[in-house]
């Protein structure tokens, strides 16, 4: 395991774990607070992807701005009263199925047999050629994924 891999798995675990808290917590303030580690985890992912400016922006806007906004609105509307109210509707199982199906579809698209290796760095892409119509098609001899 390289350092990058460890960092990725730790960040992914933080993001997903706090994402689950955001989604499931019956206490809205807990949800909003758990949003912060989720967003910071995404910040770490940006840094791994060499987008450090974006990482700074993410902390400044999301963690410092939007979260404060959300916390303010929760305090202005719900107060502590929301704890006694049912927080979820009846479509839990269906929603779980839909969300799982969509996620599975994305995973299949990302990691499917045809997809693997399609986005390897190619010499042409590495030389800094940007966003022509053919940027996203790579493996030689295969049909372009853009078409």
């Amino acid at each position, binding site marked *: 395991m390289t350092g990058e891999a460890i960092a990725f798995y730790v960040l992914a675990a933080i993001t997903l774990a706090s994402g689950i808290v955001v989604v499931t917590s019956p206490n809205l303030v807990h949800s909003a*607070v758990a949003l912060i580690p989720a967003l910071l985890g995404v910040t770490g992912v940006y840094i791994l992807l060499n987008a450090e400016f974006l990482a700074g*922006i993410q902390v*400044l806007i999301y963690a*410092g701005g939007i979260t404060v906004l959300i916390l*303010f609105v929760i305090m202005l509307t719900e107060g502590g009263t929301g704890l006694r109210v049912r927080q979820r509707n009846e479509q839990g199982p269906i929603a779980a199925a839909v969300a799982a199906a969509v996620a599975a579809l994305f995973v299949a698209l990302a990691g499917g047999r045809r997809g693997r290796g399609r986005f390897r760095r190619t010499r042409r892409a590495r030389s800094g050629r940007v966003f022509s119509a053919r940027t996203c098609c790579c493996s030689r001899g295969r049909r372009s994924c853009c078409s």
Partner: protein
Amino acid sequence: MGVTPWYLEALRAVVGTIIIFSGVAVVAAMLGVLLERKISGWIQSRIGPTHVGPRGLLQTVADTIKLLQKEYIVPQNADAVIFASAVVIVPLAALLDYVVVPVGTTRWGPLIFRDLNIGVLYFAATSSLIVVGILMAGWGSNNKYALLGGLRSAAQMVSYEIPIGLVLITISLLAGSLSTVTIVNMQTHLWFIVSQPVSFLIFLTAATAEVNRAPFDLVEAESELVAGYFSEYTGMRFALFQLGEYGEMFAMAALAVTLFLGGWHGPGLPSVVWFLIKLYALIFVFMWVRWTYPRFRIDQLLGFSWKVLIPVALLNLVVTAYFVTVVHR
């Protein structure tokens, strides 16, 4: 890069972190509290603490030891998880600022934890995290004073983040870089306070408000809100909030030194000494201001940021941009 094995780099990072944390805890928090008490005593023709140590110099050490022995009380109505995590977030976010503060220079390069190339943006981002910690503290306590203090504090801090951000942009425009080391190096001959006096004043005012100090300290107005958002925190957790507050105040002063007062530059003395002299001069200004002006009301406070500081900062940015891009290309 790549020559040094990873465990040496990790060791350097760990040692640097420990030095910064204990340094800030001692130099900023403990010495800062002592200075505050001594200077306020001096301004009010009192003596200040005298009993512990020579001339009362060990007063804050005694205070810390006392606070360490105090019981850990969680109010029964509080939201325990949020209540406990807020106390870690506030000092951690304040201390994260010190990563990009260059304190001096040596033969091997500038003395800084890490010279990030988004330095100034990093500073703005980490100090914006404190707001969340304060809101969490206010909410988690389930105390009316604490929640009101937290809300006021958050509104105040977000309002004054904008002028600070505009000033940071003005300075990085002059320096053509976001890196704090580059900004200091640009001031070898001329400090930015000479070319940007308006920015300096805006930054100093906004920084005072950002760290909730008098005359902008209405979130901790003892007569109305007890101790503001940390009313319910006892013992060492109170001390950690103090660490966060003083740490942030010193970080703001250090950033002002870096941006406007030429950082470590100065004749004769070693660079770190120059940095500390400038830092403590600014800290003295903060404390002097505290005992000179009366407290603002909340409407005056927010109005001052939005109706005075931000328009002036915007205008200052435009004028600076004109000189940088058109006149002195």
